[in-house]
């Protein structure tokens, strides 16, 4: 059979509490940081903190750490396709008007 052996690794409650606290702190930080004028950089910081929180939830709460390589590949694939949608759509909206001809 081609399925990997399943060793159910059970995390301790302490780990989950630490992760929860980290998430709550990150939420407070991102709320506070948004008041500081970082110019264009503020969006990058906000997204950065959100990505960190996403990783915490995904790796610990969703047990990605103990998951099969295939599951991790699936997650990466999903994020890659989201990037394809966003980036290729922006190739249009970011280059509008450069030619100086209305509508091109």
């Amino acid at each position, binding site marked *: *059979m*081609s*399925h990997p052996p399943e060793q159910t690794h059970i995390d301790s409650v302490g780990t989950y509490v630490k992760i929860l606290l980290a998430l709550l702190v990150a939420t407070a930080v991102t709320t506070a940081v948004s008041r500081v004028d970082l110019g264009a950089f503020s969006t990058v910081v906000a997204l950065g903190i959100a990505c960190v929180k996403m990783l915490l939830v995904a790796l610990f709460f969703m047990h990605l750490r103990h998951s099969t390589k*295939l599951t991790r590949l699936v997650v990466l*694939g*999903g994020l890659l*396709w989201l990037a*394809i*949608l966003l980036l*290729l*759509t922006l*190739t*249009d*909206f970011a*280059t*509008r*008007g*450069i*030619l100086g001809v209305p*509508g*091109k």
Partner: protein
Amino acid sequence: MITAAAQEREHYLNASYGLKSWLLTKDHKRIGLLYLATITLFFFIGGAFATLIRVELLTPQGDLVSSETYNKLFTMHGVMMIFFFLIPSIPAVLGNFFLPMMIGARDLAFPKLNLLSWYLLVVGGLFSLYAMLAGGVDTGWTFYTPYSTTYSNGYVIATALGIFIAGFSSILTGLNFIVTIHRMRAPGMTWFRMPLFVWAHYATSLIQVLGTPVLAVTIVLLFLERVFHLGIFDPARGGDPVLFQHLFWFYSHPAVYIMVLPSMGVVSEIISTFSRKAIFGYRIVAFSSVAIAVLGFLVWGHHLFVSGQSLYAGMVFSFLSYFVAIPSAIKVFNWTATLYKGSISFQTPMLYALGFIGLFTIGGLTGLFVAALGIDIHVTDTYFVVAHFHYIMVGGALMGYLGGMHFWWPKMTGRMYPEGWAKLSALVIFLGFNLTFFPQFILGYLGMPRRYHVYPPEFQVLNVLSTAGASVLAVGYMIPMIYFIWSLRYGKEAPANPWGATGLEWQTSSPPPVHNFEETPVVTHGAYDYASLMAEEAEVG
């Protein structure tokens, strides 16, 4: 007539009877037949619309139906054919039935989810049928805003809801296939021993899972804007209709690969079986399916060259569109190379497969025309594009579907179809198809726009030719419908392996038992190993 022994042997058809045994079945084979009945109904509804369109276009004036009705005809033709026939056709019928058998599994990973997928397609279909009977929708199958959100007074929401629900049938089928292929292959069935039909469905499922949700959210946004007047694509409030087109085509271009990739899988099986030779370049053909699925997501902008997209985005998408053409070309070359030094026999499935290669080649090459920016300015939104995608959809996907139906009909029903009639209808379909759609290439370059109820008189001759072809094509499609049903009662008794094919599905009885195999098969050799197959038959025989 039918021998007594075959009659009482139990298989998936006579294991249980009654409506409940069909409507609540969890057997992937029965669900495949349920899908077969459903999409055949939708196909003939869509075909009826096509016939009305072609008859209307016999004359330059709009003298059969009003403009309003004509717009509804081509819209519903598009919606029924794409969302309710072409997208489900091979994956839902042949994929559901044979994918588990080909990899030696007893069923799909999630049988109840599979039954739910069928119900979703039926409910979605009912919504669209309701929309048609209540008054029809006239936005074109593309639902471009702001016409679909503010100016159209057709049943946009009912049809969009129908497509939204049917979309989930496609997503869940794709999900089911991917998990089944990864987790439920028989012992010894490594990735490179799987039939190419399974590879093609793996690639198709990737597209269904990654692309369809974006169509779902586009429909939700369209729904929110039309019903609750949220201003997402509304130009008056600073929104951009071209953004709708981006989201729509992000799914709808990969959707054309959902329609054609399964047919490619069927053709690979048929070409190999009837040349009694392994496919030339097995791994290349397998990887080209996945390459088409991946690259198919990078090219949607070629639908927007003149619709207001920026010049530079047009160049990016045109460049990427040529990348996706290469794997398709590789497949055609490999199929043709498989015939070299083979032992070719010409039963009906082989006729359809050869027809597929020829017509798909023309369809694919004309794709290079519309991907070239310079030519697309002139030919987009004309009958040239209509001809291009009909060559791929009808010449390619539908021929592959019919080929697959004839190839696996003996295994599904335990009956042989009448070979003579089948060859005749294949020929009629091939001729009718070319007579219908080749003139449309010329019409398109002459500049006849698509979706036109009325056209200038100088285009009439080519339109009459096309309508003549359409009537021949309609007859061609009716014949299989008749003899398939006829064969259920009077067809010859089908042996387990009528074509001498190498797939696992041919190593079990026709029709197969409820759990496909007496005991789970162990795979010891490659996908198309005719030598060991002939050796085994020699021992048994």
